[in-house]
């Protein structure tokens, strides 16, 4: 109940929807509640009279242009991707068979690659620590500048008008 003894509007309208209840009896005798009910009725009447506007005349045509533009490349891309993948795998197998290497040679070459990578990693870490001990501030500043540039570029890339892609398709 409100301060002036009238029911809460939400409860009153629940009973209005049901078509019966003690609050309706109150509303019939209460000038304030009757007025609010009447305003709601009038509002509903006006709202029912509003109609949806028509979309632009070329709306369907524009949709179909987008449908055609997006559909063809997608199918085309999948076919191209599959073709490239098949060709790459085929070329790899062909090169492997052609070279005449056995599994032992593959193992040896993998181990030597690992050793070379280890040496490269050692060299790189030594170079970075030497650089850090001699020019820490310029290094930090340039790394920060590169990071900011990357973030700015990413923001530019994601901030375009077609970024609706996250919306759910229910």
């Amino acid at each position, binding site marked *: 109940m409100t301060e002036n003894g009238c029911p809460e509007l939400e409860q009153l309208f629940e009973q209005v929807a049901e078509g019966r209840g003690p609050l309706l009896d109150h509303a019939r005798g209460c000038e304030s509640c009757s007025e609010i009910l009447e305003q709601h009725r009038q509002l509903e009447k006006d709202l029912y009279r*509003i109609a949806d506007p028509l979309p632009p005349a070329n709306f369907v045509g524009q949709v179909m242009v987008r449908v*055609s533009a997006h559909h063809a490349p997608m199918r085309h891309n999948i076919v191209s991707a599959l073709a490239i993948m098949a060709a790459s795998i085929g070329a790899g197998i062909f090169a492997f068979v052609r070279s005449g290497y056995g599994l032992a040679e593959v193992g040896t070459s993998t181990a030597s690659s690992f050793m070379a990578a280890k040496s490269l990693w050692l060299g790189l870490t030594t170079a970075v620590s030497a650089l850090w001990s001699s020019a820490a501030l310029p290094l930090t500043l340039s790394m920060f500048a590169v990071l900011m540039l990357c973030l700015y570029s990413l923001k530019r890339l994601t901030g375009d008008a077609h970024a609706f892609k996250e919306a759910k398709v229910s």
Partner: protein
Amino acid sequence: MMFGEEGKALPWKADVLAARRGDHSAFASLVRSVQRPVYGLCLRLLRTDSEACEVAQEAFLRAFQNLHKYDEQKPFDLWVMAIARNLCLDLLRRRSRMRAEDVQEMKDVLPSADKSQEQTAIDREERLSLESALSTLPVEDREVLALYYVQKRTTKEIAEVVGVAPGTIMARLFRAREKLRKQMASQECRS
């Protein structure tokens, strides 16, 4: 005409099946049949015709790309409207983050193709003030009012589009209508 499990007519089913097979004219026919409520909902939510047009087109494109996920026993228009609604809310979230340029008010846009029909039903001044009050409400109020009164949807259909339990729609409707009533009253006081 095709019928679903419960004997309901499924007028969109044949077109959906044809569109899935790649028939673009069948999809165009689907777009034609539901373009008005989809565009109307976008316009009510976004309040600018250019954005509404863009988002409604995007919604149809998404619908086409995801036709294989659509359950044809359910109404096609509600499915597309749910997609459009999600896109609108997405855009509104982005817009509230950016809030850079002024938007053209919907009241300048709405008196459109249906003008003569509407003018016979309701006085232009009254309708404009109602539209103007409607456009000041939060998006969740605008959507239930638009779906229930403008598009004459049932609470069950609205619940399907909005993604809530049907029981909550009547309460939402009441609260939205009460806000609208107060907004109209304050507009009258000012004028």
